[in-house]
């Protein structure tokens, strides 16, 4: 069973929900931090990292002795990562998605691919939690290949049908799609503000398109307005949990202490959340 935790809007409490959910599940679980641009779940889960390896994407390398500057590679590159000038070919590695089309279609056979490291996968353990995250190198824009590598690692290690919790990056773009793909359920964490609502609506559209069942967790639930509640009621989206705006919660967070450790009464809330999701999945 794969449960992903996404949001639309950033800073709503995805990592808080994902890590505390993980810490409230008693069986062996996998935790994947797919927010590879800014992974932070390890701060709360403090796993012992046992393994680290680089992840690369193939980028084009031009053999100028074979190139006749026909411009074919720049025409077919969907990401505009190449420019063919009179006597030069420019490669912009940070725009390259590593699809390989340019080298495959070069009429002169002048393009070969070299590997470029974009980041690292780290894997480790904390108690019953098997932890895997990706660290995208600073300046890199291509998160999806690294997210795929994190999920591949998880797949390789997944021995029996156990629970996987995925901390998803914010937004609704490619890294989010890559992270939530194949989830059995997605928790959307939001806040009761116009911004939270706007981005929640975008995230809901995304998940409907992907046909992934979902429910909402409202963080800082006693602030803001009724917009999110009204929307969820109208759309018949279950509100699974409300986390209030409390100084103790913020204070524990700022010290890297998980909510369920600082305020143990929340453990039952997260256990209940897990049970509700399991029930939801078995119904669909």
């Amino acid at each position, binding site marked *: 069973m794969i449960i992903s935790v996404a949001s639309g809007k950033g800073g709503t409490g995805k990592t808080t929900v994902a890590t505390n959910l993980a810490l409230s599940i008693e069986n062996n679980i996998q935790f994947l931090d797919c927010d590879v641009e800014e992974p932070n779940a390890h701060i709360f889960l403090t796993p012992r990292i046992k393994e680290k390896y680089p992840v690369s994407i193939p980028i084009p390398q031009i053999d100028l002795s074979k190139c006749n500057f026909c*411009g074919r590679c720049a025409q077919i590159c969907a*990401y505009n990562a190449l420019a063919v*000038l*009179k006597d*030069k070919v420019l490669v*912009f590695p940070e*725009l390259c998605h590593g699809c390989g089309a340019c080298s495959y279609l070069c009429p002169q056979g002048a393009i070969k691919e070299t590997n470029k490291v974009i980041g690292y996968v780290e894997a480790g353990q904390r108690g019953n939690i098997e932890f895997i995250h990706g660290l995208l190198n600073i300046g890199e824009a291509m998160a999806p290949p690294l997210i795929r590598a994190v999920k591949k690692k998880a797949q390789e290690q997944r021995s029996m049908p156990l629970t996987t919790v995925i901390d998803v990056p914010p937004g609704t773009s490619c890294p989010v799609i890559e992270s939530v793909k194949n989830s059995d359920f997605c928790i959307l964490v939001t806040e009761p503000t116009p911004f939270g609502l706007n981005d929640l609506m975008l995230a809901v559209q995304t998940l409907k398109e992907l046909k992934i069942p979902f429910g909402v967790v409202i963080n800082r639930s006693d602030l803001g307005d009724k917009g999110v509640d009204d929307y969820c009621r109208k759309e018949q989206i279950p509100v699974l949990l409300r986390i209030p705006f409390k100084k103790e919660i913020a204070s524990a967070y700022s010290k890297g202490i998980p909510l369920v450790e600082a305020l143990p009464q929340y453990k039952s809330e997260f256990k209940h959340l897990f049970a509700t999701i399991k029930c939801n999945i078995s119904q669909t």
Partner: protein
Amino acid sequence: MKICVTSQGDNLGSLVDPRFGRCQYFIIVDPDTLEFEAVRNPSVSVGGGAGIQAGQLMTNKGVEVVLTGNVGPNAFATLQAAGVGIITGISGKVCEAVENYKKGKHQSTGGPTVNRHFGIKEGG
């Protein structure tokens, strides 16, 4: 000689578009005869690499100098490698920009003037 002015419209009376990679039109003009071609920018709303595409287009069209508001780092790198002159900080009407260029009022730019994706935030 051909120069290019980034433009919000398709003629010499249009206003200069301050963005290079994501401008609405490229007005490619001979400053002496004022004969021009208006090329609609195909990359206005691509995800990334608009400046590179625009730089590539300048090379393909044989443009020698670009007059615009701002250029980003990738556009600058492409234009510079292609040997295309870059003049930034241009505003007003396209025809005025061409006139001022002919009078030698403009100075070329030493580096990118904005960060990447600047043109997306500008709207339009």
